[in-house]
């Protein structure tokens, strides 16, 4: 039904914002960053701390979460991640898992292990019912869809219409040739990583209400991010967008219509898709 579709779209768009940074990083730097979830968690916890201890309004916290995590991402990229680009994939996996462990434990130490609860501003609570209850839209989910749609359009615009976007696309396709053409690939990497992490932080802040926020967040949701990236492919952003929407709707609909199977549906769907199209559903030919 419509409400389920609506919920699925909201969930999917949230997943997209969380995972798009990972997708671009993997496509661009060929780097498997399993600590991506940690940036999301950082954004969420930052928002909680700002709201609870300093009384900052929720809407202001969102851009702050984006900027702060983006900044941290930029610093980490330059200092820790850069030496790792040349290393084999396995070392990268090891490295990022190590970072993830450290962040989980550190948050546990500073913030405690219980679920964090956010108090939303009044205007975001509440619900609108249309067509005699056939479509119920929670205002917060509406808000999520709106923000994520705006971000998607912005990303698409940057990618397609700006100089930076074309440099980014060139570097994704073939970084060596791009460097040969005089594109400063290092700075493209740095900016992309920062923006990707910032988006993850924003996603974490937005998602804390819907997905829950506790120190094990990065490990819990990593699987979902990886599914989005694997199914969506790493050579565009429309791929992960569609993959995330598919995942969100399948998950929500599955749990509603066939609750006995629940999570089964998502994994089986992913498996079938990957067996049918191993490169991901929406890959341009010629990408890597």
């Amino acid at each position, binding site marked *: 039904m419509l409400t389920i579709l609506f*919920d699925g779209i909201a*969930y999917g768009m949230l997943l997209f914002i969380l995972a798009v940074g990972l997708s671009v990083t993997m496509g661009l730097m060929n780097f498997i960053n399993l600590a991506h979830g940690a940036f999301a968690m950082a954004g969420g916890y930052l928002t909680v701390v700002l709201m609870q201890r300093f009384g900052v309004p929720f809407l202001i916290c969102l851009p702050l979460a984006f900027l702060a995590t983006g900044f941290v991402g930029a610093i980490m990229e330059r200092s820790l991640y850069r030496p790792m680009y040349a290393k084999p994939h396995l070392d990268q996996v090891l490295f990022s898992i190590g970072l993830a462990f450290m962040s989980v434990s550190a948050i546990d130490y500073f913030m405690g*292990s*219980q*679920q964090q609860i956010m108090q939303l501003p009044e205007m975001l609570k509440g619900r609108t019912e249309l067509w005699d209850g056939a479509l119920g839209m929670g205002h917060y989910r509406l808000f999520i869809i709106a923000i994520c749609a705006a971000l998607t359009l912005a990303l698409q615009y940057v990618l397609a219409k700006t100089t930076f976007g074309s440099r980014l696309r060139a570097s994704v396709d073939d970084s060596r040739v791009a460097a040969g053409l005089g594109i400063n690939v290092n700075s493209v990497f740095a900016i992309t990583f920062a923006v990707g992490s910032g988006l993850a932080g924003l996603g974490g802040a937005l998602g804390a209400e819907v*997905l829950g926020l*506790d120190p094990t967040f990065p490990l819990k949701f990593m699987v979902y991010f990886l599914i989005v990236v694997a199914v969506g492919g790493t050579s565009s952003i429309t791929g992960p967008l569609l993959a995330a929407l598919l995942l969100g709707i399948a998950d929500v609909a599955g*749990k509603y219509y066939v*609750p006995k199977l629940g*999570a089964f549906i998502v994994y089986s769907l992913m498996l079938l898709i990957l067996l049918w199209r191993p490169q991901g559903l929406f890959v341009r030919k010629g990408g890597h």
Partner: protein
Amino acid sequence: MQKRLFLSSLAVAAALCSTSAMSQDKFKIGLILPMTGPFASTGKQIEAAVKLYMAQNGDMVAGKKVELIVKDDTSAPDVTKRIAQELVVNEKVSVLAGFGLTPLALATAPIATQSKTPLVVMAAATSSITEASPFIVRTSFTLPQAAVGLADWAPKNNIKKVVSLVSDYGPGIDAEKFFKDRFTFNGGQVVETLRVPMRNPDFAPFLQKVRDAKPDAVYVFVPSGAGAALMKQFAERGLDKAGIRLIGTGDVTDDDILNAMGDVALGVTTSHHYSASHNSPLNKKFVDAFTKANAGLRPNFMAVGGYDGMRVIYEAAKASKGAGGQVLLDAMKGQVFESPRGPMFIDAQTRDVVHNIYIRKVERVGGQLYNQEFETIKDVKDPGKSR
């Protein structure tokens, strides 16, 4: 490669040669808890309560010094079992305690039986645990105890049609079964039983289904800590405005996070064995001391399970004069005492806990949210025992 192998062999040999010193005049307690992972908050609460008890009652019992050994089992049963085995064999602990989840306790049961070491379950809540070994004693609670109380209360309060929503694991299934049986026996109707997967619980689609079924109330069980998400989704879906009441076992309004839930939790009626606002001098003392020692953290039902568990262990050790084994176990059975939750005793036959079950409602008291008890069902035995 050769050198690496040689050095590694030496390292292995050296590492394995470290032994632990044993001393006969110590009374050792092996506390195995989930200190990391999704149930870490349970481990924290219990550890804090145990340490509080020791701080209040000293660390000497029957002339021996009490040594507490805390281990993290990361909620993996084979690790729990190995740690328990090591504690029994190497450290020669007199009693094993803790056990945050049912599979962890069940996996360790054979060790307790084989080594004749009493095992005090401070958290896990499935009925069948105490039947897994004659050496198991429980001080936490069982889901059937909590569920049955509510199933008696609900029909008397205009709740005839219910959808049950539980987490898909042992205690959840217990909660669902016993509520359904008793509620149907009392003339009510459980129109649908939904089970939410344990991992990544997104309650939205399930609550939507509840809404579509239009019951009088939704009966809920989720593990300690997940109640917040459920509560929020409940309000967001507009279930309260649609006239559906939220009832359940007290895990959903866990004292640990209740205050942070906000007004959306007001009016939720639950049945449980412990509330931090229980009106007794002992409980007030317990809550004050606990919050003071733990930076304002409020104790929850897990903490009280740990606190009472220590009480049982200490008193039994005094009665057995520091001995372990069967003597210690016998001294644990049949203990009657006042706990922060109210009066309770350890049933000598089943070795399980018998205590009051309270029906409570969430209200704002002095600016904070508490589960206010308004009805008491006395001395509830676990209805889940097969014998």
